[in-house]
């Protein structure tokens, strides 16, 4: 922790010589009943007063869903059967996380800057107390990333940001259908020689709308009414089907 704090103090803030002007194909994603995922186009330009530097520009774009605490469990063979033995609690892991870069990740961003801005997928997961819960806590974090990458919840998209004339950039991030509601923090970093020279932040709002919104709110605010409604639907459907079949058989 001390080393991290020192690093933060030592890192001098770069001059704001270059700034991001951003556009989003949409800053709001509506989850409807037939939501099948969504593609978001993130594009922009670099505004600068000085002439373009000799050092090539790098662009890193991240989109992060709301963070939640997560417990990762591991199975082990005990008495012939596979049992959950060790568990590690991670303080906060984003439900969705995508990183798109304009080049290979190590070239665009140094390790130090990654640590500082929490850009790469492992860094985006906060696990302060994890090391004390198991000797090999990292393997639990790796497992979480592996499982979530399989469902496209975590994406590392190297070389996915197109950069023209060191000024115009664009990328497309595809949000999967299994989205959690919330504010999706979107960050754009401009880098030179792996160091962040400018950063820009905005938010994409992901919300349930219409019937989805109404049901969700009702279930949280009036759970008893919601429960009774679920039962009423079940009873009506059961009785209705029975009556319908009886009528069918009589004819």
């Amino acid at each position, binding site marked *: 922790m001390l080393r991290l704090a020192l690093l933060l103090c030592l890192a001098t803030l770069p001059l704001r010589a270059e700034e991001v002007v951003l556009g989003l194909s949409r800053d709001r994603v509506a*989850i409807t009943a037939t939501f099948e995922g969504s593609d978001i186009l993130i594009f922009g330009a670099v505004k600068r007063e000085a002439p373009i530097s000799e050092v090539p520009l790098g662009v890193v774009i991240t989109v992060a869903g709301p963070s939640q*605490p997560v417990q990762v469990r591991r199975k082990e063979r005990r008495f012939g059967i596979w049992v959950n033995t060790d568990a590690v609690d991670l303080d906060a892991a984003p439900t969705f996380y995508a990183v798109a870069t304009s080049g290979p990740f190590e070239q665009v961003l140094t390790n130090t800057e990654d640590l500082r801005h929490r850009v790469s997928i492992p860094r985006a997961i906060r696990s302060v107390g994890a090391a004390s819960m198991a000797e090999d806590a990292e393997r639990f974090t790796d497992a979480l990333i592996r*499982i979530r990458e399989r469902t496209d919840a975590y994406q590392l998209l190297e070389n996915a940001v197109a950069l023209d004339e060191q000024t115009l950039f664009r990328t497309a991030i595809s949000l999967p259908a299994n989205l959690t509601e919330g504010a999706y923090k979107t960050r754009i970093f401009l880098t030179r020689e792996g160091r962040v020279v400018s950063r820009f932040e905005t938010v994409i709002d992901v919300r349930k709308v219409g019937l989805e919104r109404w049901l969700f709110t009702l*279930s949280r605010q009036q759970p008893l009414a919601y429960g009774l409604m679920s*039962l009423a639907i079940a*009873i009506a*459907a059961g009785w209705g089907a*029975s009556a319908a*079949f009886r009528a069918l058989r009589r004819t």
Partner: protein
Amino acid sequence: MQIYLPIAEVSVNAFLLLGLGGFVGVLSGMFGVGGGFLMTPLLFFIGVPPPVAVATSANQIVASSISGVFAHFRRKTVDLRMGVVLLIGGLVGAALGVVLFNYLKSLGQVDLLVKLFYVVFLGIIGGIMFFESLRAIRQTRRGKPPKRKKHGWVHGLPLKMRFRTSGLYISVIPPVLVGLSVGILTAIMGVGGGFIMVPAMIYLLGMPTKVVVGTSLFQIIFVTAFTTLLHATTNFTVDVALAVLLLVGGVIGAQFGTSIGTRMKAEQLRILLAVMVLAVCGKLALDLLLQPSELYSIASGAGGH
């Protein structure tokens, strides 16, 4: 057609859910089981989070059981008095089960215990039913009338009551105990419990097979409705959109199931149910015995330690 479930927060195929509901509904009508012991694991497979799957299948079982029980009412194959006695035991059992469940949760091994419960109970019951039915079928082939034990320890207990529909005059203690233990299992395993109650009614209480199905459906309706309300108010895990899709398939399936069930012989019905129970048991046992391809699993919202 994909559909987004508001509480489960996943997107699934609507026709897959309809089909799943229909399949489980047919079984429910045929055997008088709620089908939760199949529905819940099947929902896990298509990616519904386990707490939502358990709570929602309870809601779905209410619908398919109601749909099935009307058909039985018309045929007068519901022993209402027995149903109420079982129900009293069942509600007490469900409350006790929730307490026990939370205790096991605090120990941190609730998943394993639920699975072991499944394997042990399904194994024992499936095995007994399978061999009993085989013997009964062989006896009827040889022309001997199937023997039914008329007097056992069940008949020596006090508080006797006449159950006219079942043609029984027995103590209320065994049915209350059956209801109670099924209620406990309902809360722990997240199922209607018909697959345990049906054999218990046949072999323990000596009820006629035809009455057993309708009566267990009657009891299951109320116990699962109670469970649904508990989940909706405490865990917020009942997904009404998921439930509607499952129950549309389920109620239609249950109607077909009931008419298939009445056309089959009791022994055949029982042997089929036994095979199904053993198949689910075998699958769960394999999961415990074989090395899983992914050793790690994610439980969202880290619980207490």
